[in-house]
């Protein structure tokens, strides 16, 4: 059994860790390229949303690299993704691929289905289910630590004294974490990570803006699709905060250790604007925007794929929130036609607005933009 998972946030990191523990074969999903997108779009029905088209292309690449089992999570709530696993299977089979598909539903929806899927994986690995569950708990813990590194780093980049210090710290921390397997090792790694970040010299008094990044998981987490927005914003003097982490989504009971607030609190934050969950992460994003407003953020970037169901509802609501909470929210919808220049122009306008609101217009600030012409992965947005 050689498995492949979608490349979204830290999901493939956790999957690799799981396979190292259990001895299952694992195919690292190849990094996204223009070709992935083109191949995915070519075999997708027109009205699939962008992440599904990309995942189809990515699945083809993983299967060609030797995977024989695709493991995926079958959506959250009522969004399109709910039925994607089945259609993905049908479409790929039609194109001549032979594989097994395991689509995990949330155990909240159906415990028997979840158990059946676990058993399929356990059989493939030749392990008992209890062993699998124990390993999964550790994988999750490690995934949370991995996401915590990201969360930590995006808030520091704009304030670092030596350019690139945070990136060095991130790669150091990832090295430390990658060799941690037992519970004690992971806890020790967490301490080391803490110390390593503590050693990065920061300049907290430097003028900066605070920007929240929210949106659909694929577009907001994968640097290839969002012009690596964390670093892009950091170069323009923005301390970034993000709300969605893959390990939070995988953690049961809605506790969200990385984000720091639970699903119940989420409903409270979103309450006056959106009083019911709407599938996907629509409610979370509305809650996050209202949380950012309360914390005095200067701007929020909302990224989602074209015609994403929950996020389109969220965007409608953001129009109202933006006015009532006095918070600039820029919604960008992304798909295979998105150009990098168009995205950058809009983001620059948002950043300028955020600086202007601070009374630090571009001309006055001294140490503000450390513009580097750093090479960014040329994303789908790289066409420009």
């Amino acid at each position: 059994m050689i498995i492949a998972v979608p490349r979204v946030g830290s999901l493939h990191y956790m999957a690799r860790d799981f396979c190292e523990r259990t001895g299952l074969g694992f195919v690292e999903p190849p990094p996204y390229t223009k070709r992935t997108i083109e191949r995915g779009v070519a075999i997708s029905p027109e009205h699939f949303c962008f992440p599904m088209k990309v995942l189809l292309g990515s699945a083809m690449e993983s299967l060609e690299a030797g995977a024989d089992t695709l493991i995926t999570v079958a959506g959250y709530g009522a969004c399109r993704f709910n039925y994607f696993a089945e259609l993905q299977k049908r479409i790929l089979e039609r194109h001549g691929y032979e594989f097994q598909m395991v689509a995990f539903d949330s155990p909240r929806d159906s415990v028997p289905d979840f158990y059946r899927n676990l058993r399929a994986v356990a059989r493939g690995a030749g392990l008992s289910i209890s062993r699998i569950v124990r390993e999964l708990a550790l994988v999750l813990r490690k995934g949370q630590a991995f996401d915590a590194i990201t969360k930590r780093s995006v808030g520091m980049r704009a304030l670092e004294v030596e350019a690139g210090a945070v990136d060095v710290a991130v790669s150091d921390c990832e090295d430390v974490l990658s060799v941690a397997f037992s519970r004690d090792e992971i806890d020790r790694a967490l301490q080391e990570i803490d110390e390593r970040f503590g050693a990065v010299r920061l300049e907290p008094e430097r003028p900066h803006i605070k920007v929240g990044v929210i949106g659909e998981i694929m577009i907001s987490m994968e640097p290839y699709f969002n012009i690596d927005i964390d670093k892009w914003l950091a170069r323009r003097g923005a301390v970034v905060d993000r709300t969605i982490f893959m390990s939070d989504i995988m953690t049961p009971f809605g506790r969200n250790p990385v984000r720091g607030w639970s699903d119940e609190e989420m409903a409270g934050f979103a309450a006056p604007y959106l009083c019911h969950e709407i599938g996907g992460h629509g409610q979370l994003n509305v809650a996050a925007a209202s949380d950012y407003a309360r914390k005095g953020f200067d701007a929020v970037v909302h990224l989602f794929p074209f015609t994403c169901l929950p996020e389109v509802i969220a965007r409608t609501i953001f129009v109202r929130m933006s006015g009532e909470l006095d918070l600039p929210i820029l919604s960008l919808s992304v798909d295979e036609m998105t150009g990098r220049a168009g995205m950058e122009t809009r983001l620059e306008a948002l950043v300028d607005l955020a600086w202007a609101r601070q009374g630090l217009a571009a001309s006055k600030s001294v140490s503000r933009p450390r513009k580097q012409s750093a090479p960014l992965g040329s994303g789908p947005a790289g066409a420009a």
Partner: protein
Amino acid sequence: MKVGVPRALLYHQYGECWTSFLDRLGVEAVVSEATSGTTVVRGAVYADNEACLPVKVFAGHLLELKGSADSILVPRVISQHPGMKACPKYLGLPDMARALDPDLPPVVSPCMDLSDRRRRWTGEWYQVARDLGASNMAANAAVNTLVDQLPARASRKGPGESGGIRVGVAGHMYNVHDQGVSLGLVERIEAMGADVLTVEQVPQRFVRRELKTLPRKIKWEFESRIVGAAMHWSRTRSVSGIIYVSSFACGPGSMIGALLDDQFEREESVPLMTLILDEHSAEGGLVTRIEAFMDMLRHVLSARARQS
């Protein structure tokens, strides 16, 4: 006191029970006029540009109610059966309505979760009734009317019996039965000498039987009915062809459209045509495609008749 009810989306499903609830309370229900070209255009201008056509039409209806109602009733329809879900658009509809225009009258949004215990969701309707000034007894009576009027209907009318070919139109009620949205699709097909069958005319037990044959359960209630009905028509050969009607940017619609395409290709099915509606749909294009489809069906039938 006038309460506005937009004639859009699930009004086409539950409209009768909502208005009879208001009637019973002695509150005047102001239902917006039938969808016109202006409704669609205004809705498209006001609503989010990536929203689906029915939501844009809904926005148009909301705006029409702006001057004529003291409050607007937008129930939050959550689920019809345990384990089933509604499209996110229904779930967030009241919140979208509130965000649409700050000058709108207050939006009243009791939940309607038919899969839940009845007392839970009817409690919210009771509260709405009390807020509208009804007495305890009147509120209870109104809630009972609401529950009694819930559509149990399998069909409003059977197919016409003109003896012509039969065509199944699989699509949401708010697309198929709204003349302004579908540009009179059903009537046009009938005018071409065919009998039209729609989804709500298929008994639920047939729908459920067909759905069981799918490897993965469809969790959207209305979409599952569409798929079940289309598969029933195709497998029993009760129609000569099926027109699947969806709207641009409809999420669940895009998924079941792909599913129907794939499923029908795997089995001997009747011909299937997909029509995607949006606010730019024009009569000319629609008529041409229906005509071509009908010609094709007639051709198939006559070829088959010659063979036998």
